Structure formats: structure tokens, C-alpha cells
């Protein structure tokens, strides 16, 4: 008969024996007990079981379990750990969140919609900074240099044409730059044995060098004869133009003697993603270290409380 009782009925009866029911539950159960014999029988059986269990002999400790200094290794109770599990767990989570944010930020900066806007704005500057591929493709032929010089005089840049006579030209055409670069390469084995007498290297053009560009006369003003002799005695103006147009190298001419410096185009280019990558590396390392430390701390704490 008692087999028909549900698990919930047994739980109620068991809690009733221990006085763990609320007054409402107790009243309801006592009302049911008066009407149902199966409940009374089940309660009796549980009560007897409980009495038998409580009659179990209390076992006395067979020996003294006092600790000796040797047992505890002469150590005092462990101090509170330096880093709590919660603090380490929080640090790991925070580092992980920041890592995700930096990845998203990098994506927005270099691959997302922001990147296209930035690229559109900075495109002209990038063109001005980088070495034109045409310069690298120009061979070391002196005849080509003279031909190009001719092309300079024949096809001046629009700004140079528009500028009044004697007005400094702040910008120059790609062709002019190419000629200067070509000449710098070609004139290196200049006669006289002092090819680098007036040459110096500068990482960035100084403020005093700026006027050199402004003082340069328009290219179309150069006499044709001088232009044709460019392979033998290059003009100082062209060399100065080359120096001003190349931020990493300055070629200066001294008393018409050709001096050239091969610009160092192999300098490492600054990668704007580098700070993002560094931050991501640091955050990833931090997340891994703190996460591992949190796990170890939790294991240690558990083993101590066992």
C-alpha cells in the first residue's frame, strides 16, 4: 500500500519526522494522516528506521589524532593566498575582453569602414612619401638621363608653367624627380676622386634645407645647353631638387661637382598595426597567465580544504 506513495510524499513524511515542515504543510499532512492509513503506516516505518539509525553505536576514536610538528612540517597555518581566485579570474576575464576589443579596433582601423575613409584621406600623402616605381626602373644609362632631361624641358609640370618667372616652385613633377634620381646614380663615379666631399646623409630634411627647394628655379628656365650637358656636370638645382624630394637622403652639390648619394630605400617602413599587435600580444599573455594562475589557485584551495 505504501508503495503507491510518491517520492514527494516520502519527502514530506521524512521532513515531518524532523520537524522541518512549515506550519501550513504540517497542518495539511496531519489532516491527511487522519484519513489515510497508508500514510500512517509509511510514517511508522520511517520513524522506526530513523530510530534504528539513531541507535547506532557511537564509535570512539581508536587513538589520539593530535597533530605533531612533524605532521604539519613545522609550518604554521597557511596564510591567506597572495592572489585570490576571484581576483585572478576577474583579471583573466578583463584581459580577454580587452583583447577582443583590440582585435575589433584593429579591424575597424585597417579593414573596416573607417579604414577606407582614412585611406582616401591619406592617399596623396602616401604617394608623395613612397619612392615612385619609375625611378627604380630607370636604367643607369647616361643617354637616358639626357633624354629625360630634355623631356623635362619639353614637358614641364603644369604648376611650373603657370608660375611666374623666377618664382620658386614648391612642387615638382615626377619626371624631374626621376631625372635627379637617375643622375644621382649615374654620376657616382665622378672624376676627381672626391665623390662624397659635400655629401651628407640626413634622416629628415632640416628646416634650413627647405629653402633650397624654394630657391630652385623652374625647370623650364634651365638653358638647353646645360641640360644637354647634364651627364657630365649636373646642375646644382637638380641635385637640390633630388635632395628635397627624397626625405631619407640629401644630395648636395659643391661648386658644380657632381655629388650623389644613393638613397637608402631599404629602410624598414613603420607598420601602423604594430601597436595593435603589441597590445594584443600583451593582453593574450596576461589572459593566459592569470587564467592559469586562477586554475592553480582554485586547485590548491580545494586540496587544502579537503
Amino acid at each position, binding site marked *: 500500500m505504501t508503495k503507491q506513495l510518491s517520492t514527494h510524499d516520502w519527502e514530506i513524511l521524512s521532513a515531518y519526522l524532523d520537524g522541518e515542515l512549515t506550519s501550513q504543510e504540517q497542518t495539511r499532512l496531519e489532516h491527511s494522516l487522519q484519513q489515510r492509513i497508508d500514510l500512517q503506516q509509511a510514517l511508522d516505518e520511517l520513524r522506526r528506521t530513523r530510530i534504528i539509525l539513531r541507535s547506532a553505536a557511537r564509535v570512539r576514536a*581508536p587513538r589520539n*589524532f593530535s597533530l605533531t610538528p612533524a605532521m604539519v612540517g613545522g*609550518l604554521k597555518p597557511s596564510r591567506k593566498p597572495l592572489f585570490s581566485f576571484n581576483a585572478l579570474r576577474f583579471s583573466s576575464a578583463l584581459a580577454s575582453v580587452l583583447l577582443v576589443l583590440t582585435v575589433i579596433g584593429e579591424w575597424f582601423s585597417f579593414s573596416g569602414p573607417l579604414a577606407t575613409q582614412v585611406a582616401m584621406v591619406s592617399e596623396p600623402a602616401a604617394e608623395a612619401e613612397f619612392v615612385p616605381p619609375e625611378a627604380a626602373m630607370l636604367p643607369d644609362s647616361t643617354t637616358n638621363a639626357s633624354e629625360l632631361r630634355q623631356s623635362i624641358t619639353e614637358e614641364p609640370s603644369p604648376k611650373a608653367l603657370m608660375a611666374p618667372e623666377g618664382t620658386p616652385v614648391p612642387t615638382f613633377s615626377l619626371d624631374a624627380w626621376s631625372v635627379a634620381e637617375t643622375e644621382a646614380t649615374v654620376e657616382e663615379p665622378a672624376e676627381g676622386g672626391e665623390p662624397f666631399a659635400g655629401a651628407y646623409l640626413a634622416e629628415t630634411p632640416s628646416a634650413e634645407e627647405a629653402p633650397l627647394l624654394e630657391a630652385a628655379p623652374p625647370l623650364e628656365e634651365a638653358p638647353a645647353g646645360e641640360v644637354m650637358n647634364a651627364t657630365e656636370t649636373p646642375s646644382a638645382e637638380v641635385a637640390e631638387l633630388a635632395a628635397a624630394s627624397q626625405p631619407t637622403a640629401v644630395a648636395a652639390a659643391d661648386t658644380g661637382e657632381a655629388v650623389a648619394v644613393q638613397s637608402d630605400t631599404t629602410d624598414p617602413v613603420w607598420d601602423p598595426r604594430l601597436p595593435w599587435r603589441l597590445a594584443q600580444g600583451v593582453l593574450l599573455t596576461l589572459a593566459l597567465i592569470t587564467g592559469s594562475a586562477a586554475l592553480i589557485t582554485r586547485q590548491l584551495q580545494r586540496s587544502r580544504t579537503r
Partner: protein
Amino acid sequence: MDEAALILEAKRGDLTAFNRLVLAYQDMVYNQAYRMMGELDAAQDATQEAFISAYRSMHSFRGGSFKGWLLRIVTNACYDELRRRKRRPTTPLEPLDDDDEEIESPHWIADPGETPEESTERQELSQAIQNCLEQLPDEFKAVVVLVDLQGVDYTEAASIMQTPLGTIKSRLARARLRLRDCLQGFWELLPAAFRLVEESKS
């Protein structure tokens, strides 16, 4: 010196103060271990290990019931050992004598004040209870030992087991239901006077 003062001294590393706490609670801790493990040697190991763990983690005791805190430590120690044994079940459940024979009526639970007949019946009942406890799942066993043998209330049992109160209530009811079937027939072994007193209490 009262318990609170002993605990304070023990937290500062005073081993003597801690050992006074050991003396006060070692029977309780050992009983829990014995009823959980069912063996003398394993119970002694668990008890010793529990006291060493307790001393080392005194800093984590935040007040409240020191008895409950110790019971939690020894119960966890028994859980670990029982889990380990389930992976490598080679240890006999019955204690062995000097000739490696199983002891059916362990002498260490004998009460010197009893007559031989009473002692025999009592040992028989105690062994029967232990055998029935062995058949329970570890979680059920821990709850029923805490509540019915150690006299802990539901709230403290929930704290010791780190389990919700409803789970304690449910596990205890199911454990008692299984023990009811297992212990049928042992009611008559209880002394008549004891039965009357207990039934009147209930």
C-alpha cells in the same frame, strides 16, 4: 579556554590550541569517517588527513560552526577516497584481523558496560546499519550519516554538503526509504525500553 579563543590561537599557528580542538572533536570526525568509509584503517586515515587539512586551512575559517566546518572537511576527504576506490576497487569492505580474516563484529565498537548478549546484539545491529549504509550512493550516505547519526539539522547539513536545502531534504527521504527496506527485521533487536523511549520522542 573556550572554543572561540582556541580557534583564534590556532589561526595564529598555535598547535597546542589546535590539538585541544582535535581532542574535543576527534570522536565526531572519526564517526563521520567510519560511517562513510566503513573501515577502521580508512577512517583513521581520513580523520588524520582531515585534521591536517583543517590546521593548514585555518585561515579560511570565517566563524560560524567549527563542528560543521570540520564535518565538511572530513566528508570531502571521504568522498575523495571513495571516488579513488571506485576507480581501483581492491580494498575489502570488512576490517581484517591479524590473520587477514574479515571481522564480522568489530571489537572497537563494543561498549564495556553492556552484557555479552546486549553487546552482541548491539554489535550486530551496528554492523547491519553499516552494511545498509554501504549500499547507498555516497551523496545519500553522507546526508543520512550527518542528520541521523551526527544529529545535524537540515540547514547545517546543507551548509556542510554545500547543497541546497531541498536537495538535502530529498536525499534524506530517499536514503531513509532505502534503509527502511534494508533494515527490516532489525527493529526487534532494539531493547524494548529503548524502543518505547524513542517512539515517545517521535
